């Protein structure tokens, strides 16, 4: 697959994507700078994490008006698959490609840890080869990951099956009120969503940081969780139809 990677001043997860999608999974990854007015002819666009424009004004607010995002928007509107991770998710929400917004974590802390995620929908290019109900471990690293949307927006998300990941405990139990398993306070413990069509996906966790056994949950919890979760994180980026 040809992946176009969108890089802004302050993006810092672009190398993680190059490594995971390029070196580990064998995709061709080409980077485009915020001021570029083109994104090549990709199969997939990835907007990676970081602190675009220093998070000035609001996370993702300044990135959404950069020239390269006009091209990303066109690509998304024509049905092209777009994936936003962490700050990339915030940018896609700000640009209106995804509904909702990411508020500050309720804990008032920067969260850097592993979380358990439950697959809620396999209706997207990113999750199509997983099973609904699958639980896997994935790192998070953010200060503004508290997903928020108004009540009518939330019911629309739920009705259209647009929630794709929720934070959960290791057994897959989702408890939105629990600060251990829903560490940033997201509404409905939502960790990732898609647009209605399913071609735009955003999530706060960083699966690209967990595709390699070397950095995936060493000293982790239960026996087979270690290899299994690396496998799931890799599957996400395999992008097979």
């Amino acid at each position, binding site marked *: 697959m040809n992946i176009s990677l969108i890089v802004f001043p302050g993006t810092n997860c672009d190398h993680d994507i190059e490594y995971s999608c390029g070196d580990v999974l064998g995709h061709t990854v080409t980077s485009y700078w915020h001021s570029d007015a083109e994104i090549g002819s990709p199969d997939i666009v990835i907007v990676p994490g970081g602190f675009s424009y220093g998070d000035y*004004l*609001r996370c993702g*607010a300044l990135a959404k*008006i950069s020239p390269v995002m006009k091209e990303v928007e066109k690509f998304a509107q024509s049905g092209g698959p777009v994936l936003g991770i962490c700050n990339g998710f915030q940018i896609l929400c700000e640009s209106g490609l995804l509904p909702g*917004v990411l*508020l500050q974590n*309720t804990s*008032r802390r920067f969260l850097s840890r592993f979380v358990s995620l439950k697959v809620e929908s396999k209706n997207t290019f990113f999750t199509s080869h997983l099973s609904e109900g699958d639980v896997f471990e994935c790192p998070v690293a953010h200060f503004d990951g508290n997903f928020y949307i108004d009540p009518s927006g939330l019911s629309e998300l739920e009705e259209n099956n647009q929630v794709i990941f929720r934070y959960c405990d290791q057994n897959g139990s989702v408890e939105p009120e629990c600060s251990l398993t829903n560490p940033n*306070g997201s509404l409905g413990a939502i960790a990732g969503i898609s647009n209605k069509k399913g071609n735009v996906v955003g999530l706060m966790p960083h699966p690209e940081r967990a595709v390699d056994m070397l950095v995936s949950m060493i000293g982790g919890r239960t026996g087979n969780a270690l290899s299994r979760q690396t496998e799931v994180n890799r599957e996400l980026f395999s992008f097979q139809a």
Partner: protein
Amino acid sequence: MKVQVLVRLKEGVLDVQGKAVEHGLAGLGYEDIGSVRVGRLVEFDVDCGSFAEAKDRASKACEALLANTIIEDFEIREPAA
């Protein structure tokens, strides 16, 4: 024409920053201060002839960038001379 834009989280949206400030104040003995909300003040000049025009431009700028209207309200003011 000088304009001030006050951007605030909508009522009902959790203001984590406000909560932190409130706790900080309480720690300094200001337990009588509650319901703290932190907003953002943006000031700028609009090149036009009247405040009404400036307000209209500022309002469009808020919708386009300065506020995220999913979670924030904005108020446009003429600064005191």
